[in-house]
């Protein structure tokens, strides 16, 4: 069912204006190389969902002006601090933020995966997050009168986009311990994946690999992108390039610095 495509431009060709695009946190495999292809498309007004957080990828997309809404629990450069272009856009009011908390993002994607019309979450009551989320509600626990519970609507992304170590020619994708990518693929209408390597063997035929493999049933397109998560890391393949991220953090402090970074970065791939 999945299509193995030859270019990153082909991978992201269907992501249109206003699309709801879900991306994983830095540890889980961020499709940085494909993000460049997305910027080449000139798409605008994206609604980005950081699952459950996001980092340099979304900061670049926000800095490039292609994001209308960021829905996530955090935008962070990790050791290198908060995300500068995101912070600037918030101050300028040029990006809408749907601030969440990590398990709310996870639960809302689970609701999509399982076709639940809504899903409860403990906690949250008394957090200002709730006051600013018109799409979250508080109901009474039907099994315990007086017990108030926050309920969330499902998040159903138009596209999931991430990077993984390995796929096969059918589009089955091995994700290792990053199980949230399984939920994400199930929950999304379309799933776009870059991988370090494409195997000739069917991953589902391997009894040890298959339990951590997203079946092609849930995968729309796959493209090879060696070092496709860099400067972020890919577990088992390469570590994050802390110096490159720190350099980004410095350059992106100003609009001019970010413009210089972006020009250089776009030219590099």
């Amino acid at each position, binding site marked *: 069912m999945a299509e193995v495509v030859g270019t990153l431009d082909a991978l992201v060709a269907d992501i249109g204006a206003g699309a709801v695009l879900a991306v994983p946190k830095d540890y889980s495999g961020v499709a940085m190389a494909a993000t460049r292809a997305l910027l080449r498309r000139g798409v605008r007004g994206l609604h980005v969902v950081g699952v459950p957080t996001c980092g340099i990828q979304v900061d670049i997309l926000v800095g490039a002006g292609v994001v209308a809404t960021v829905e996530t629990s955090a935008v962070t450069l990790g050791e290198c601090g908060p995300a500068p272009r995101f912070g600037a856009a918030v101050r300028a009011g040029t990006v809408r933020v749907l601030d969440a*908390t990590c*398990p709310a993002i996870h639960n809302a994607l689970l609701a999509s995966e399982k076709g639940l019309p809504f899903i409860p979450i*403990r*906690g949250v009551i008394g957090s200002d997050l709730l006051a600013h989320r018109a799409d979250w509600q508080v109901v009474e626990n039907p099994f315990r009168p007086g017990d108030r519970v926050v309920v969330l609507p499902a998040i159903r992304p138009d596209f999931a986009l991430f990077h993984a170590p390995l796929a096969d020619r059918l589009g089955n994708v091995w994700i290792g311990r990053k199980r949230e*990518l399984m939920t994400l693929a199930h929950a999304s209408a379309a799933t776009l994946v870059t991988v370090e390597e494409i195997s000739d063997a069917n991953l589902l035929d391997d009894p040890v690999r298959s339990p951590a493999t997203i079946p092609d049933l849930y995968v729309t397109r796959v493209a090879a992108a060696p070092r496709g998560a860099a400067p972020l890391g890919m577990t088992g393949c390469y570590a994050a390039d802390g110096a490159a991220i720190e350099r980004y953090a410095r350059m992106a402090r100003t609009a001019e610095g970010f413009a210089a970074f972006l020009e250089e970065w776009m030219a590099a791939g």
Partner: protein
Amino acid sequence: MSDAGPWGPERRAQTALLVATIADLLAGCRHVAVGQQSPIPGTAALLARRESAGRLRVSVLDSDRLSSFTNGASELFDCAAEGRIDAFFLSGGQIDGRANVNLVGTGAYPRSDVRWSGSFGSAFLYFIVPRVILFREEHSRRVLVEKVDFVSAPGTSPPGVYRPGGPHALVTPLALFRFDRAAARFRLESVHPGRTLAEVLEHTGFAFDYAARPAVTATPGAARLAAMRDVVREEVAEIYPRFAARLLDGAG
């Protein structure tokens, strides 16, 4: 932003004190979870593990080596919800006297004057984990405010709100506070060696309870410092290499 350069002996001693203080707060825990960008709490948890003779389990998030989680990014939250995590660490751009934490930003929301990363899992874990330890390396009126500008997660909840967990203590470079959930107030537990109550009062933006002559935080002895160095050399260095090198006074 990580600060650069090597540490002097004073910074090393202060860091060791913070590690030891936090490790003591974990007494009796079976399972402590630590965020990845948390070298001091992480070191404290690993020290407490060594001192527990294996009874304490430590999960460092997003670490393939120091986490046994295999069920994806939601496992931390599920594990906490199942009552399998006894302690967790939170920080805050602002922390107020009712232990409310703000990880979002200063000024009026949504167009914050300074925007921080976001609330992460705080709005869930702060309610669920029995012993949440607040830790911040800056003790100032900028951080420890009377009232946070944005409540990422509230320190207390009214009766009827499901809340098995909550704030337990606050550790800063100046002092250790305990949080009294019923009173919704911090109480100064001890002032770190070389610091004074006056200093703590001067730099704390919220009111708190204290004794006229507060206790002094216990300094780790030579044996404990040696154990700490072993932990840092053998375990912490794998996940926080820069931090480990600085703490290991050149000898490590």
